[in-house]
C-alpha cells in the first residue's frame, strides 16, 4: 500500500518545557484507520498537530506522498488542502455565526465558485447528518452537535487525510456509534483517518492500526495485537479492551466457538447467552 503521510525522526518540545518526544518516526498508508492512544499529557495532541502542519517540529520532517512538508505560506496552504485537522474542543474551531457559514469557510478559502461551495457544504452536512441544523447559530447547539459541525468544516475541503483529536470525548454512546459509522463510510470512500482517543474499545472496533504514545516513546502496529497487550497498555495508563478479553475467556470456557469473532459490544455479549436467539 502507498504511504500517504509519514513522520521522519520528529522531535518537539514546548518553549521552556522538556521535549514531548524525540526522534519519533511513523508511516500511515492510504486508506488506513489509525487510532492514537496514550495517557493524559502523553503527547497525542502534539503528535497530531505536528502531522497536520500546525506545529513545526524542532527536528525531523513530515512527509506527504514522500515529499517533505515545507513551512512557507504557500507550501502549508497547499498541504492543508490535503490534510485536515479537527480539534478536540469544537469551540476551538467554530467561529462563524451559523452552521452553513462556518462550513463554507474552507471551500471559500480555496477560491471555489459559489455554486461549488454550496454543493460542498451540503455534501459535508449530509455526511455528518446535520442538514436540519444548516441555518442554526453555532453557539446554541449542544456539544455533540457542535462536534459534528467541526468535522463537517474539515470534510468540506475533501481532504485526503482527516485527523481528529478525541472525536468521541463528550459524546453519548449513541453519538459515538454514529460517528463510528461516519468514519467507516469515509474510509470506504478512500479517506485516510487518524484519530486519538482514550476509549480502547472504540479504538479496537474502529481502527486497523494503532499507535500508543507514552513517555516520549511510540509503539505502532495492528490494532488487534497492540490493543490486547495488557502490559503495554497498563504502561500507558490505558486498560485492555473488553471485547478481546471477553472473547478469549469465553472461547477458553467453551462459550464461543474457536473461530468466532470477539464480541464488540455488551449487547453482542448478551446475545451469546445460551438460549438467546442470535
Amino acid at each position, binding site marked *: 500500500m502507498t504511504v500517504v503521510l509519514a513522520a521522519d525522526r520528529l522531535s518537539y518540545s514546548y518553549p521552556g518545557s522538556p521535549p514531548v518526544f524525540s526522534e519519533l518516526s511513523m508511516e500511515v498508508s492510504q486508506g488506513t484507520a489509525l487510532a492514537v492512544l496514550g495517557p493524559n499529557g502523553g503527547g497525542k495532541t502534539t503528535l497530531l498537530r505536528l502531522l497536520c502542519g500546525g506545529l513545526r517540529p524542532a527536528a525531523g520532517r513530515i512527509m506527504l506522498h514522500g515529499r517533505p512538508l515545507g513551512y512557507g505560506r504557500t507550501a502549508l496552504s497547499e498541504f492543508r488542502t490535503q490534510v485536515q485537522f479537527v480539534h478536540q474542543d469544537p469551540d476551538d474551531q467554530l467561529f462563524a455565526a451559523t452552521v452553513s457559514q462556518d462550513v463554507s469557510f474552507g471551500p*471559500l478559502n480555496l477560491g471555489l465558485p459559489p455554486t461549488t461551495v454550496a454543493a460542498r457544504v451540503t455534501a459535508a452536512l449530509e455526511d455528518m447528518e446535520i442538514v436540519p441544523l444548516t441555518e442554526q447559530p453555532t453557539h446554541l447547539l449542544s456539544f455533540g452537535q457542535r462536534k459534528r459541525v467541526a468535522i463537517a468544516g474539515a470534510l468540506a475541503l475533501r481532504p485526503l487525510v482527516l485527523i481528529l483529536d478525541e472525536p468521541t470525548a463528550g459524546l453519548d454512546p449513541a453519538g459515538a456509534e454514529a460517528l463510528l459509522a461516519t468514519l467507516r463510510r469515509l474510509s470506504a470512500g478512500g479517506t485516510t483517518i487518524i484519530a486519538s482517543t482514550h476509549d480502547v474499545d472504540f479504538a479496537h472496533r474502529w481502527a486497523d492500526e494503532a499507535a500508543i504514545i507514552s513517555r516520549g516513546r511510540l509503539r505502532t502496529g495492528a490494532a488487534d495485537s497492540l490493543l490486547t497487550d495488557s502490559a503495554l497498555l497498563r504502561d500507558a495508563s490505558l486498560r485492555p479492551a473488553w471485547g478481546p478479553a471477553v472473547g478469549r475467556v469465553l472461547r477458553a470456557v467453551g462459550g464461543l466457538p474457536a473461530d468466532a469473532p470477539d464480541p464488540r459490544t455488551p449487547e453482542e455479549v448478551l446475545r451469546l447467552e445460551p438460549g438467546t436467539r442470535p
Partner: protein
Amino acid sequence: MLAIDVAAYRSPWRRRHPAAKAVLAGGLLLSALLLPPWPGAPITAVITLVVALGWARVPPRAFLRSARAPLAFIVTGSVTFLISVDTSGLAWAPGGAVRAGEVIGRCVAAVFCQLLFAMTTPLADVLPRIARRPGLSGLAEVAGLVYRMLSVVLETVNAIRRAQADRLGTRSWRTQWRSVIGLAAQVFVLSFDRARRLEAGLSDRGYTGSLAVSVESLPLTGRFLALAPLPGLVSAGLTLALTSACTVA
C-alpha cells in the same frame, strides 16, 4: 502561554515577597532614569543584567527575546533625533547621535529593570495583595478576573487562529480579512460567554460579591529585603564616583 508569565512562575525568586522585589527593581529603575546617562545607563544595565541572569536565574534567551519588542520602539523613536526639521526643511541634527545614544542607553537599562521585576514576580502574587487595600479591592479584583479570563480566552483564540489556518484562512489578503473579522467577533461572544459561565460557576461556589482569596504569607523581612536596595545604590555610587573622577581629572 506568555513567555514572561511562564518565567515568572518558574522563577527561583517566586517565594520572595513582591514588595521586596519591587524595591530591588525599583531602585535600579530609579538609577537608570535619574543618573546621567553616561556612564549611568551602561552601569545600571550591566548590574541589572547580572542580577537578573545571575542572581535571579532568569533564562537568558527568554529575557532577551522579551526585550525585543520595546527595543524596536526605542530604536525607531531615536532615529528621529538624528535629523532636525524646521521651516527651512530637513538637516542632520547637530549632536543628534549623542542624544539618540543617551536615550537608547537609558531605555535599555530601564527595560531591563522592568523585565527583572516582570520575570520574577507573577501577577498572581501581586493582585490579591493589592485587593486587600480598601478602595482598590474592586479594581484589583476586576484586574484579577481579566488576568484569569485572559488566559482562557487567549488560549481559545490561538486555537481558533490555528484552526483558521488549517482551513486555509491565511491563503490570501481576502481570506485573512475574513478570518480576522470572524475571530474578532468571536472573541467578543467568547468573552461574554465566559463571563456568563463563570458567573454560574462562582454563584454555585457561594459568590456574593467578594472575590477575596487567601494569599500565601511571605516574610517581608530578612536578608533579601536588606539586600534589595543594594544593586540600585551600587549603580548610583559607581556612576557618581566615575563622574566626579572625570570632572576632577
